[in-house]
Structures are given as C-alpha cells and as structure tokens.
C-alpha cells in the first residue's frame, strides 16, 4: 500500500513540477512539428512510389519517433530521474520519509512507478494528439495500424524509461543533483553518440580498410536505345559479380563489429526497433532484419541500471 502512496506522490510531484510541464510542452511541440514533417515526408514517398504498393501510416510514426523522441524523449527521461533521490537527500525529506513505516525498496519502487506513470502519460498523450492530427489530415488508421502504433508506444515508453533509469542510477550514486545531472548527460552522450562512433572506429581498426579494388569500368553506352539492358548486362559480368561479393563480405564484417557497439546504444536500438515496425525501411536503409539483439540490448540496459540503482539505494547510508 505504501508503494502506491509513494508512486502517487511521485506521480503528482512529477506532473505538477514546472520542469515536467515545460518539457512536456516542449516535447509535444517538437513531436507535433516532427509529426507534420513525417506526414509530409510520408506523402512525398507515397506519391513517389509505385502506386500499386500500399504503405502503412506507421511510417509517419517512424519519422516522428526518430526525430521527435530520440532527443526530447531522452532529455525528458533524464530530467525526470536525475534528482529523484538526490533532491530528497538534499532537502532532508528522505530521512523524514524513512521515519515512516515504509521500506527503502518501496520508496525506490514507488518513485520509479510514479515516474513511469508520468512517462506513460506523456507517451499516451503524445500518441493521442498524434492520432488526432492524423485524423485531421484524413488518415484513418486501420486495426493493424493501431496495433503498430501501440507497439510504437511501448517501445517509446521503454526508451524513456531507459534514460529515466540512467538518471535514477546517477541520482542514487551522486551526492547532489547537479553532479547527477552532469553524469546522466555524460552517460547519455556516451551511449547515444560516442558508442556508435567508437563502434565505427573499432570496426575500421579490426576489419581494416575496404578492399583496394574499384568497380569494373562501365563501358560507354554506344547505343542509348535500351540502357536497362546494358545495366543488366554489366551486372551479369563476372568482374562485377566478384567486386560485389568482396564488397559485401567486407561490409558484413564491418557491420558485425559495429552492431556489437550499437546494442549498447539505446538510441540506435530504438531507431532500429521502430523502423522494424514499418513495412518498408524509410530512414535506416541498411538495418538488420533480425532485431532480437537490439531488443535484448534495449531491455537489458534499463534493467541493469535500475537494478544497480536499486541495490545502491538499499545499501546506501542515509545521513
């Protein structure tokens, strides 16, 4: 029962804080903007493609998720959790709280639950407003679209919770809120930006430079009547096949190394997962079809941070 009380208290604190409201408003604005952009891009792609191909509107959400949520959602998650413990500790309210018949695990679980509920509010609100915008623009989603949107919401929620758990971890281990915020942002940059770059460097170091062969020369087309036939003829040539095989081998090796680092990056995992929801890859052209690794990495990271935070909080000395 104490867990619910703490969660409610935390939920109320979160949603009534000016920081949350500002960030929520900012996020809704960014989301609305990126959603409109997504609709335009979707329509352009829709018109540009063969009219016999039926596209799903979840691709709009893919655009929205990539450009609207990856940054603002991450910041929201971090801001919601970076002072969750440090603030209580700094204000001395933690001691007061512990003076009540409530366990430490109930406190941290309740706070996490409250924050998670606030995040759910953000995600649900964002999706409902997105559906409203879609309806205004004339897009009436089908049942399949709604299921895909629900999946998108869950993945987005998990993404926000990942950064919340990072912030919770820093809040647990840091002595004050400012340190916690700095560390949290440091980890965010490390995981979102540095890890993919590092993966790229390591892959280059491990696999080496690309094979020092250029594509076979394309003969100058003397007859322009049927250039398609010329292309097919070139692609069938043994030189071209050999070049393509070697380049594919090189890219596969490189991708294998890079994917190891990308699994640790929640941003990359999030993009990969929402891209996999849509029928056609729009933004990440060379994604791996098998997203199991990304899903595991995506779930494992918040769990690990939350568990560490949980243990650290239970064992910490409350002064």
């Amino acid at each position, binding site marked *: 029962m104490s867990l619910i009380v703490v969660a409610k208290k935390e939920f109320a604190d979160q949603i*009534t804080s000016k920081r949350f409201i500002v960030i929520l408003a900012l996020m809704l604005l960014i989301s609305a903007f990126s959603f409109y952009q997504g609709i335009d891009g979707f329509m352009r792609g829709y018109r540009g493609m063969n009219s*016999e191909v*039926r596209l799903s509107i979840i691709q709009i959400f893919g655009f929205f998720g990539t450009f609207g949520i990856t940054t603002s959602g991450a910041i929201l998650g971090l801001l919601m959790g970076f002072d969750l413990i440090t603030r209580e500790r700094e204000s001395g309210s933690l001691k007061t709280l512990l003076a009540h018949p409530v366990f430490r695990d109930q406190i941290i679980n309740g706070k996490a639950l409250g924050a998670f509920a606030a995040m759910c*509010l953000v995600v649900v609100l964002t999706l*409902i407003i997105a*559906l409203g915008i*879609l309806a205004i623009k*004339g*897009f009436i989603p089908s049942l399949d679209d709604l299921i895909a949107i629900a999946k998108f919401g869950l993945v987005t929620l998990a993404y926000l919770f990942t950064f919340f758990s990072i912030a919770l971890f820093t809040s647990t281990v840091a002595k004050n809120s400012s340190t916690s915020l700095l560390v949290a942002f440091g980890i965010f940059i490390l995981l979102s930006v540095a890890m993919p770059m590092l993966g790229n460097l390591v892959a280059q170091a491990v696999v080496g430079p690309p094979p020092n062969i250029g594509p076979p020369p394309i003969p100058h087309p003397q007859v322009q009547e049927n250039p398609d036939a010329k292309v097919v003829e070139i692609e069938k040539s043994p030189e071209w096949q050999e070049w393509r095989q070697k380049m594919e081998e090189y890219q596969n090796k490189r991708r294998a190394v890079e994917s190891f680092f990308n699994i640790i990056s929640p941003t990359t995992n999030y993009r990969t997962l929402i891209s996999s929801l849509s029928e056609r890859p729009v933004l990440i052209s060379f994604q791996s079809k098998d997203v199991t690794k990304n899903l595991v990495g995506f779930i494992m990271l918040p769990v690990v941070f939350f568990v560490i935070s949980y243990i650290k909080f239970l064992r910490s000395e409350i002064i």
Partner: protein
Amino acid sequence: MRRVLLVIAIILATLFIGSVESDVRSVNAVPGEILSFDLKITNDRNYDRNIQLSYNAPEGFLGKFIYGGKEVELLRLGANESKTVQFQLEIPLNAKEKEYSVGINAAGSLMLRINVKMPEDPLEIIPSISGVAVEAGDEVSFPILIENRLNAEYSIDLSCLIPGNWSYKFTENGIEIYRIILKPNEVRLLTLEVESDSSSDVGEYIIIPYFNKQSIELNVKITKTHKGEHGKIKLKIVSKDGKPVDSAKINVSGVGEFFTSAEGEVVIEVPLGTYKLELTKEGYYSKEIDNVDVKAGKTTDLETITLEKRPYFAEIAVTNPRISFVIGSGNPTFKFRIENRGYADDTYRLSLKGLPENFYSKFKESQQSTEAISEVFVKSEDSKDIYLEILTPPYAKIGVYNLTLLVEGHYSVEKNLTLSLKGEYRIYFEPVGGMYLITSEAGKTAEFNAILRNIGRGVTLTNINISATAPAGWSVAVNPSEIPALEAESSLPVKITAHVPPDTLPSEYRLRINIRSDQTELQEDLKVIVKEKSYAGLIGGGIIITALIGLIIIFRKFGRR
C-alpha cells in the same frame, strides 16, 4: 553440094588463070589459133593481069591475104610472074574438133585441110604447195602457177572441188576471180584460198581445183577439230564522231539480246551457224547485218560498226523513281535529269499524269526554288536537273500512286514514278474539358469522361485496347475497353470509372491509362485527389480536445495538495 560447087570453081580457075601453090596442105590447129600459109601465086599467061584473091572457109573462119605487110585482095602479076602471098586463117574459138576444108582462089585454086583438135593438156599447172596442215576452220592459200601451152588465147573457167561446208575462192593480186584468159604461152600466178569447216573432223581432205577440164589434187590435213564448240561474234559500235556507243543492244537472231560495254565492244558466244544481227540504241538509227557466219571455236570479227545518231533524242534519269512518304510531313519531291542525246538542241514541255484529285505538282529547277517551270531548254549533249514536287493534301488517302512523267519535245519520253503514301499513326486521349485531375473521397467513385481521337493521317487504327493501372485495391472500369477500329479524324467517348477503396489515405493518386492498338500506343496519366472525409477533422479535433481535457483532469486530480 557446096563441095561439088567448090571443086567446079577450082577446076575453072585452073583452066583459065594460072596456079596457086603451097607447101603446106594440111595442118593441125586449136580453136582461136591463127594459122599462116605461104602461097605462091603464078601468072601462067604471058601478059600482065590482076589476080583476085579469095578464100572459101567454113562459117566463123576468118582469113586474109598479106602481101608486103598489108592485107590485099587483088594482086597484079606480070607475064609468067610469081609472087608469094601469106594467107592467115583464124580458127574460131568455138570451132569444133574436126577437119575443116578451106579453099583458096588466086589464079588457081588450092584446098587446105585444117584439122581442129584441142590438146589433152593445154595448160601446165604447177602448185607451189600441194599439202597444208591446219586447224579446222582455218583458211589455206595455195599459190598455183598456170601456163598456156597453146598458140591460141585460152579461156579458163576456175572451179574447185572441196569437202562439204568448206569454201574456196581464186584470187589474183587480191581480187577474187572465177575465169581468166591466157594468151598463147602466157604464165599466170593464181591463189586458191580454201576455208575449212571448223567442225571438220581430224583427217586429210582432198581439194581439187579445176581449170576447165584440167585439174590437180591438193591436200589439207586437219590437225585439230572444233566440232561442238561455240563460236564468237566480235564487234565494236561507234558513233559517227568515233565515240564508242555503250549499252547498244545487239539482237542475234534466234539467240538473244546482248549489249555493248562502255568501250562499245561486245563479244557474243553463239553456236555455229549463220545469224542476222540487229544493232539498236536509243537515239541512234538501228542497223542490220545479215549472214554473219559463225564457226565452231572461231571468232567472227565484224570489226567496227558505225551507228548514226538521231537529231532528237532525250533520256530521263530519275534519281528516286519510288518515294515512300508519310502524309503531312512535307511534300515528296522527285529528282530527275533530262539528257539531250540528239545532235540538235531541244525544248521540252514537262507534265505529270495520274495525279489524284486534290494533288498538285510543281516542276522546279532547284529544290529550294519556289518558282514553277513548265518547259526547259536543253542543248545538244547537255543535261539539266529538274525537281518535281508533289503537293499532297493533308488528309490524302494512303496507298501507292502510279504517276507518269511526260517530257515532250521533238522527242518525247515517259517515265513511271511511284508515290507510296504512308499514314501517320497517332492517337490522342483527353478528358473532357481537360479534366486530368478529379477530387474524390475514400469509398467513392471517380469518373472521367474522355475522348479518344485518331489524329493520325490517312490510317484507321485497329484493335484498340484501353486499360488502366491503378493503385492497389482500386477497381477501374473502362468503357469501351475494346474498340475494333477507329478511322482517321474520328473520335469516340471513353468513360473511366475508378472506385476508391474506403481505406485509401488522402493523397494524390495516379491512374495510368494504357491505350494500345495494332499500329501505335499511348499512355496518359489521370490523377485522383482523395480528400479526407468531412468528419475526419471533427474526429481529429475531438481526439485532441479529449486528450487535453484528460490531461487537465489528471492535473487537477493529482496536482491538488
């Protein structure tokens, strides 16, 4: 009776005048020979007297008395005087071989006996060559020396016995002869030219030339035969000015037609025989050559033959006698050249026959020229290029038009021209009022009313099939979708109905209309803008407002302290 009278006359003369005596009383002679007798005439009387000289000879025998180198008829003799007078008697050429009596009356009478008889061999015939070896078909010459052994002139008929299909001729100093007259003891050199038959088999052949009844035997040995082989006729045709006449036609009777080369020469191979040749060439008077003998394996060279040019003659050379042309892409133009091959200048009128109705023609001196000409002057041996532009009406019927170009001067020429007009296959599809874009809603139907028009020229489009490619889930109906035929310049209404599926997102959609016929095809794009449903905005607005109200409620509920 005549002999009896002659004897009586002689007796009377002997009795009353004197005497005439000769040492020769009987001689042999040949026809044409002139015999000479010395007659001793004696006056038996002892006084002077005139002695009449006369003779009595058969018809044709001509006699005369010569005394002192002069012909005399009357001789004066002194008393008992004797004089010797020469009596010449010419035996006629047609005298028969027999004994003739000639009576001489001069103071007395004398009977001479003339035994006319031709010798066995009046001629001595000596051939220089008596045997020659040649190929069949070759000509052989035998020089033959003949001498007249007679004291008389001797006429000789020349003939020769040769094998079949051979030919011969006697020549003397290059002139063919068939009869000669030899003076007494005259020697002449004749040539017997014998041409063998080229089909003669290998072997020895006898040639027997006859000189009246006398003959000799000559031999010709054929060493190689041309039996079964074809012969050749060779000739060269030139004009009067010596220029070779090319492409002249040589019609060899029973064989065929042949043409001369650019040098005017021709060699025609034909079976052996005798042919008639007809030489013709436009612009020249034709010529016939009869009895051209062709021998197997041999070339009969007719050498150079001259054809005489006509005063007026023209040739028309059309550069493009057949034109295939697409209606409406300009005007087809024929180009031709008038060549005046006659030796006189000429003016030619230009016209065209066979032009269909609404077609017009224009003769021009250059392709770019806008001036039309109807006559053209061309000097002898000169030429002029002319362009014939056909003005076709825009909607002419396709087909093949046979035209005749007439160039009329002193000499007129016609040329056949063929104008093949082809159609242009074009089809046009347009929505009525230019409505390429129609606005509709999901679940509703978009309807296009269009016109399909055959805007080609002169052709009917057949088996027209109209289909539409639409986005997935759309159903499109085209009415009519099959059109058997659509004539040029005709049109047909076409209705395209597209059913927009209910779940279609609002956007702009493309309907691709594919029109295919046997002749051509066309693609046109129509657009359907699917707008959001009218209530979609309300729903969207309601959702957003509901979400915001929910947020406010949550704020109010949890934000209360």
